[in-house]
């Protein structure tokens, strides 16, 4: 059997070559990369591969175990459908960005040490920034800068934590780390920034809706899920994660309910679902950790499907806001169908979400975490109401916006169809397809019990009933074109404020220094060294000239002569020798004492 190559290498090489190709050849090549990635994936044996020595560190580029393989698998699936989805426009930047992003994410999850992880962690940011720039609008350019700002900050926090961790005697091993001391806490926070924790995660809903139509598929998959993977590896069972996860599962929903941009609604719901995974990591039991991996896998599927469906709407109509959309089922019936499958995949039986998320909820129910259990149920109801009902309803049904457009292009429909089929297969055959990939195979879980299925159907129908009744009663908040303040205010308004503060204070110091130092002190010193000597000489010579009874004109001429000679260093040798003798005499006198 041929040897497997590091997955990231295939993707990064592909990303480098794509810009040099043209036309159909580029399309075929770009799509071939994930296909090669897929074949390569099945050649990877469990174990540690591809070790490289760098200085005194041993870098491990491939650690293949349950955790890394399930994440690499879903990343490979998304890289394929993502590339297929953006294939039609055949833009080198978009294709390269997607491949680079996917390769970085696979490099990060396959990393066996913290230094390799850090390297790919930073590359993820590059991929995301390219996906934002690929939208090619002024506001996406600004969003890319904000994204870069936040993630460079996060990277510095992580690097500082890593250095302190190593300095305190910690190892570079990418395994469970004790959350004590400044280093591990900084690393914890650095991971949390990418994981979109409350407050520090405001970058996500700020920038994601600015990404290109296809770029968002990659963004919604790689950054946060890599962060979930890293947290599950390094800080499993950390109680504080439980409450961070609960906050993530609940708080964004209140924003999603009043948000107008449907892609931003999905971004808020993404944080909610990542919150479930963080709760699973916080619980740290084998079932909960399996649930985190399974939910990450399934979540990526249906989030990608929903974002693709709304992305196709944006692609065809140029609009993604609820106030501008509605009734598109007439123009885009197939996209609408896929959007509904994506919505059902969130948690309906027979679809992916049902077999993944319920593991985490069951894990909280079987422990002593009643409040967490209730919070997750609230989160599950909310996300179905908003991502599952609100998004398809406002885009494809509801008030007819009058928009008429073509159905999504074939490649986008194929991409959505692929994900829909995978979601259905995973949902119906979890024991064959999903559960054998989970990290801990000793845990058994059966999602399809009669009680669970009927409970879940009742749960989802009740969400639907609540939505319809609220619409009929006029209770559901009208969609309004507005900006809703979030923690991104801190850097979007705070940043310019600090800029102005720094401008006023530091630039004032700068100006004062420029005036005082450069304007007065430096010319003074220069003047002293340039004309200090001859001035002193003139000061000594003036009485001598007076004794010689020189006229004022002759005195002036003598003074000019001194200045000229000082400037050119051209005093007669006799005078120089005379002063040298005096100097030596003074020195010999000093030596006597």
């Amino acid at each position, binding site marked *: 059997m041929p040897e497997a190559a590091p997955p990231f290498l295939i993707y990064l090489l592909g990303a480098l070559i794509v810009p040099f190709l043209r036309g159909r050849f580029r399309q075929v090549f770009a799509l071939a990369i994930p296909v090669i990635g897929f074949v390569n994936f099945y050649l990877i044996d469990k174990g540690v591969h591809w070790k490289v020595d760098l200085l005194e560190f041993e870098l491990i580029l491939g650690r293949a175990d349950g955790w890394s393989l399930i994440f690499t698998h879903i990343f490979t699936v998304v890289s394929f459908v993502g590339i297929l989805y953006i294939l039609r426009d055949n833009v080198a930047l978009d294709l390269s960005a997607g491949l680079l992003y996917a390769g970085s994410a696979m490099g990060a999850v396959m990393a066996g040490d913290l230094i390799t992880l850090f390297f790919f962690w930073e590359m993820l940011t590059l991929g995301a920034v390219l996906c934002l720039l690929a939208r090619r609008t002024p506001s996406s350019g*600004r969003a890319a*800068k904000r994204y870069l700002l936040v993630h460079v900050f996060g990277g510095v926090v992580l690097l500082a934590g890593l250095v302190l961790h190593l300095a305190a005697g910690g190892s570079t091993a990418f395994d469970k780390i004790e959350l004590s001391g400044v280093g591990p806490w900084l690393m914890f926070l650095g991971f949390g920034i990418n994981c979109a924790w409350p407050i520090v995660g405001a970058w996500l809903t700020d920038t994601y809706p600015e990404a290109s139509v296809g770029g968002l598929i990659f963004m919604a998959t790689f950054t946060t899920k890599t962060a979930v993977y890293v947290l599950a590896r390094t800080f499993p069972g950390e109680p504080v994660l439980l409450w961070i996860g609960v906050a993530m599962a609940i708080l964004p*929903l*209140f*924003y999603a*309910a*009043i948000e107008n941009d449907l892609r931003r609604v999905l971004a808020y719901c993404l944080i909610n679902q990542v919150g479930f995974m963080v709760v699973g990591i916080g619980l740290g039991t084998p079932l909960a950790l399996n649930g985190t991996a399974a939910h990450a896998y399934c979540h990526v599927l249906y989030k990608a499907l929903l974002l693709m469906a709304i992305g196709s709407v944006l692609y065809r*109509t140029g609009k993604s806001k*609820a*106030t*501008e*959309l509605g009734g598109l089922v007439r123009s885009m019936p197939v996209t609408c169908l896929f959007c509904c499958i994506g919505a059902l995949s969130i948690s309906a039986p027979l679809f992916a979400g049902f077999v993944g998320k319920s593991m985490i909820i*069951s894990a909280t*129910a079987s422990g002593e975490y*009643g409040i967490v259990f209730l919070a997750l*149920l*609230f989160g599950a109801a*909310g996300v179905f*109401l908003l991502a599952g009902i609100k998004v398809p309803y406002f885009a494809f*049904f*509801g*008030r007819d*916006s*009058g*928009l008429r457009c073509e159905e999504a292009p074939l490649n986008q429909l194929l991409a959505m169809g692929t994900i829909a089929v995978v979601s259905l297969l995973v949902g119906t055959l979890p024991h064959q397809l999903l559960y054998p990939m989970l990290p801990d195979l000793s845990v058994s879980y059966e999602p399809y*019990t*009669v*009680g669970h299925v*009927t*409970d*879940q*159907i*009742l*749960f989802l*129908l*009740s*969400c*639907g*009933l*609540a*939505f*319809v009744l*609220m*619409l009929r009663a006029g*209770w*559901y*908040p009208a*969609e*309004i*074109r*507005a*900006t*809703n*303040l979030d923690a991104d205010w801190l850097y*979007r*308004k705070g940043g*310019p*404020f600090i*800029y*102005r503060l720094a401008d006023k204070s530091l630039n004032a110091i700068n100006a004062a220094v420029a005036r005082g130092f450069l304007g007065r002190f430096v010319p003074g010193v220069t003047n002293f060294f340039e004309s200090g000597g001859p001035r002193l000489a003139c000061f000594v010579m003036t009485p001598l000239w007076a004794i010689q009874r020189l006229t004022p004109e002759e005195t002036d001429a003598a003074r000019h002569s001194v200045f000229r000679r000082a400037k050119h260093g051209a005093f007669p040798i006799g005078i120089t020798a005379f002063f040298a003798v005096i100097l030596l005499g003074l020195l010999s006198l000093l030596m006597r004492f």
Partner: protein
Amino acid sequence: MPSPKPSPGGKSAPPAPRKYFKLLVAACGFFLLLDLVFRLTGFDKHPYLKWEQWPGFYGIGAFAACILLVTISRFVVRPLVKRDEDYYEKSSSEPGGKSDA
């Protein structure tokens, strides 16, 4: 591409789907009844927490959660956080945001 009819300030909520409303209510009723039967007969239910033993817990819970979520969003969160649509863009044209060009 035809221009969309702008909704008047977004004030008019889209009409609720009437056709399937009765079906939805009937389905909810059916599964609620099924839940009651299962509770009474003790069939295939393994409640871990005391709330789960209440009949119709998942139905009533989800319904209440949705109402609570929307109500808080509408009457608490929106008045607190709502700003003009160009809230951030306005500031970026000011001198402080000139680096955003």
